[in-house]
């Protein structure tokens, strides 16, 4: 409440005040895949989620240091970064599980920084937490039912989740702790979907899963997006993130080191941002390429804001 809303470029201010249902239609219809390519058009709309100068402490440790981001309807916004970069903390803070020491989170034009996590969930911020976090003693179907208990109105139902994951219906009476990791991940996604969120936060979907399973799960993303969702995902697996993302942000030790469209950043830039190397050092490092540079070419210019490529970042 304390801060004035940032002026959304060119977006109709009325969009902020109209009711949620109308906004939903709005967001979905204005975000077909083709439009995502142009930065200017991206900025045309009001962000559905806006994080400003977010600082979070875990005890003495400053896990996030003035992180800002704006997610627009229909996007796949990927946050990458190494272990301990603060990615999960960022998502958990957006979901309301951590309290920021500074900064604000605005969702759909409303300041939700002080809103309890369950209220955020019912207003449309869904999350698939790291490590799945299913209700282990409940069956697959019960997990989905719990997810649907306080659902918003929308396209997703338990039936529709069964259609998305064909195997699930036959095993719906099984306890989820007996499922494999990939299956559990699918149930976790289903549990988040049936609540019909407008923004879906995906925390490390690939964690602890075989590459084939990871690909299969990410393969579901287009179908999920087709229902009009916006996705904010966190991923250590850079190549996977680049494959699906329409916007990219790299964190290192709680700070943003790179931001831009995947097509505008080079492999070297991503590497430098990911590991905190200087650009010169990054070229050298690309020889031993920890990441598979198959996705991007170096066609873009430095339109991405590389705010922190100094040696201080490379500890």
């Amino acid at each position: 409440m304390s801060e004035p809303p940032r002026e959304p470029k060119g977006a109709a201010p009325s969009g902020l005040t109209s009711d949620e249902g109308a906004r939903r239609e709005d967001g979905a219809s204005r975000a077909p895949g083709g439009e995502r390519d142009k930065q200017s058009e991206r900025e045309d709309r009001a962000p559905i989620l806006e994080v400003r100068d977010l600082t979070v402490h875990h005890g003495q440790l400053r896990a996030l240091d003035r992180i800002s981001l704006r997610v627009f309807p229909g996007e796949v916004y990927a946050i990458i970064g190494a272990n301990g970069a603060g990615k999960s903390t960022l998502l958990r803070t957006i979901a309301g599980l951590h309290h920021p020491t500074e900064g604000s989170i605005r969702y759909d034009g409303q300041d939700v920084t002080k809103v309890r996590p369950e209220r955020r969930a019912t207003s449309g911020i869904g999350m698939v937490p790291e490590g799945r976090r299913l209700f282990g003693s409940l069956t697959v179907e019960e997990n989905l039912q719990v997810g649907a208990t306080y659902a918003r109105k929308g396209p997703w139902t338990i039936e529709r989740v069964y259609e998305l994951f064909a195997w699930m219906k036959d095993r719906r009476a099984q306890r989820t702790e007996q499922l494999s990791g990939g299956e559990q991940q699918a149930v976790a996604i289903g549990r988040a979907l049936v609540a019909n969120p407008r923004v879906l936060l995906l925390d490390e979907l690939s964690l602890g899963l075989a590459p084939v399973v990871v690909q299969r799960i990410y393969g579901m993303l287009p179908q999920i997006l087709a229902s009009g969702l916006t996705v904010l995902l966190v991923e250590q697996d850079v190549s996977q993130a680049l494959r699906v993302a329409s916007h990219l942000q790299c964190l290192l030790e709680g700070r943003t080191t790179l931001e831009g469209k995947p097509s505008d950043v080079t492999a070297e830039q991503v590497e430098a941002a990911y590991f905190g190397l200087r650009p010169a050092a990054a070229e050298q490092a690309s020889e031993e390429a920890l990441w598979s540079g198959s996705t991007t070419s170096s066609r873009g210019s430095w339109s991405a804001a590389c705010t922190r490529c100094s040696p201080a970042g490379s500890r």
Partner: protein
Amino acid sequence: MVGGLYALFACGLSLMFGVMKVVNLAHGDLAVIGGYVAVGVITVTHIPVLWSFVIVVPLMAVLGYVLQRTVIQAALDRSILTTLLVTFGLSVVIENGLLQFFSANSHSLGVNDAIITSSFSIGSQISIAYLLLLIFVVAVVVLLGLQYFLSRSRYGRLIRAVADDQEAAQLSGIDYRHVFGIAAAIAFGTVALAGIAYGMYSQFAPTTGTDTILLFAFAAVVIGGLGSLWGTLLGGVILGVSQAIGAQISGSDEFLAGYIVFLAVLVLRPQGLIARRSTS
């Protein structure tokens, strides 16, 4: 047959531990409050003793919800250990409050119905009072109902989900504090029922809660296995039977026998007879 009574005491304790990890040290005193409330309700409304639960149980359930949402939740927000202190404090407050207002005289809920007060015998040694049989049946019905509620109903599902993972439940839009409140309401309702049953079976004074009821409830829960409703019933029955056998040997061995069984279970099968699957 006293086992039914013990099980009735223990299931609320077990539920509160299973869902919110609260070891409710005031549990026995709450049963006694249930008994006193019943005494009050009966003197005011002249309702038959057997039917007093219709008023007492909902009253206690509301008290449970309120206490959980205020005092116990505040303790939980700090740490699990704080809940031990807080419920212990509650226990002391309740006990002394009752002493203050009702004196140390013991009360009972007399039932003057001949069918209830008489007993029947099996063989020459064992005689069973109809009252205890009734309590046992009530206990089984309550446990069945609880089981059905937890496994089938919407709120039961939420309670289990919250017990599994609070944070994930929040991400699904569930206010776990409300769910805790409901679980506490159920626990308080069952303990009120147990308090009334105890008042009909025996007599209670302000100190009965911690002196006997709480200990027996704990013993029943531990023997049966934490978090298992049917284990609780089994634990109650075993405790009751061993006490009866002990009493046969010598009047003073009654409680001793119960605790020997309790210790034996702790040594031989610390997870309880019907162990709940381990959750990590």
